[in-house]
């Protein structure tokens, strides 16, 4: 599907793109959008679980990025910088939601139901795995099946690389609660995927 016509080859690499952004070229901003919007949108969507909110975060992120490009320090990559802005925006959004109920009524210990039930080996090798539609949808479904209180911790700690301390501060939780929730989230995801994964590969 054709979008607005823009020659992406104007900026063959990130350094050239950065130069364009610094010079305030509109094409550079468009190019940055095209290159990074899918990443930011997908992450915001996983964090918030709501398409409208994710789109709002996406827009806020790029408005800030195009606006305040001068605050970008080259220590990190452009994607990392954008993602940090998006994470902050998404966390503010989460706090606005008043979801303290769901986040605090959770038992802060491994529950019997969390213990591994399915003890079959998985033939899949993640390093060589092809992320086809079926695998993608299995992973998304399992993630969506987690309670938000576990999903958000998995998201921040596991995928976004926040430290236990940072995640605890962001969510207003104790550090031990963050640790337990991360563990529970991993165990639950493992269990949710186990039936599919144990069978996967037998027909590959």
């Amino acid at each position, binding site marked *: 599907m054709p979008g607005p016509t823009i020659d992406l080859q104007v900026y063959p690499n990130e350094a050239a793109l950065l130069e364009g952004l610094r010079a305030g070229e509109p094409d550079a901003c468009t190019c940055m959008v095209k290159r990074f919007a899918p990443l930011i*949108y997908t992450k915001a969507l996983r964090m918030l679980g709501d398409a409208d909110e994710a789109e709002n975060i996406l827009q806020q992120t790029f408005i800030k990025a195009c606006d305040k490009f001068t605050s970008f320090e080259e220590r990190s990559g452009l994607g990392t910088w954008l993602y940090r802005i998006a994470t902050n925006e998404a966390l503010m959004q989460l706090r606005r939601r008043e979801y303290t109920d769901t986040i605090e009524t959770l038992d802060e210990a*491994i529950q019997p139901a969390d213990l591994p039930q399915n*003890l079959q080996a998985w033939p899949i090798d993640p390093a060589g795995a092809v*992320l086809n539609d079926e695998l993608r949808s299995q992973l998304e479904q399992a993630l969506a099946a987690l309670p938000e209180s576990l999903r958000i911790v998995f998201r921040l700690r596991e995928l976004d690389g926040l430290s236990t301390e940072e995640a605890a501060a962001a969510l207003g939780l104790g550090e031990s609660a963050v640790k337990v929730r991360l563990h529970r989230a*991993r165990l639950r995801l493992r269990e949710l995927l186990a039936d599919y994964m144990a069978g996967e590969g037998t027909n590959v």
Partner: protein
Amino acid sequence: MSNTHTHDNFTRCQQLLGQLNEYADGELAIDLCHELELHLTDCTDCKIVFDTLTKTIKLYHLLDENPEAIPAGVEERLLRRLNLVSS
């Protein structure tokens, strides 16, 4: 000695399960690490839990690094919002 102890030594495995998490993060104390590694060579069930847990984490990283295409309209609305296209 049996090389699997799903039921006869389940409490022990349960304790180790808690350590698997820290082990996966490289946060487990060295002596406990050693003990756990020893157990993993000996206990088929725990070994499978560890392997599949590690695979779970890796698969989600893989998913995260490969976002799907952005839904139609989202990019267009974004560009419009940034005044990068005339509508």
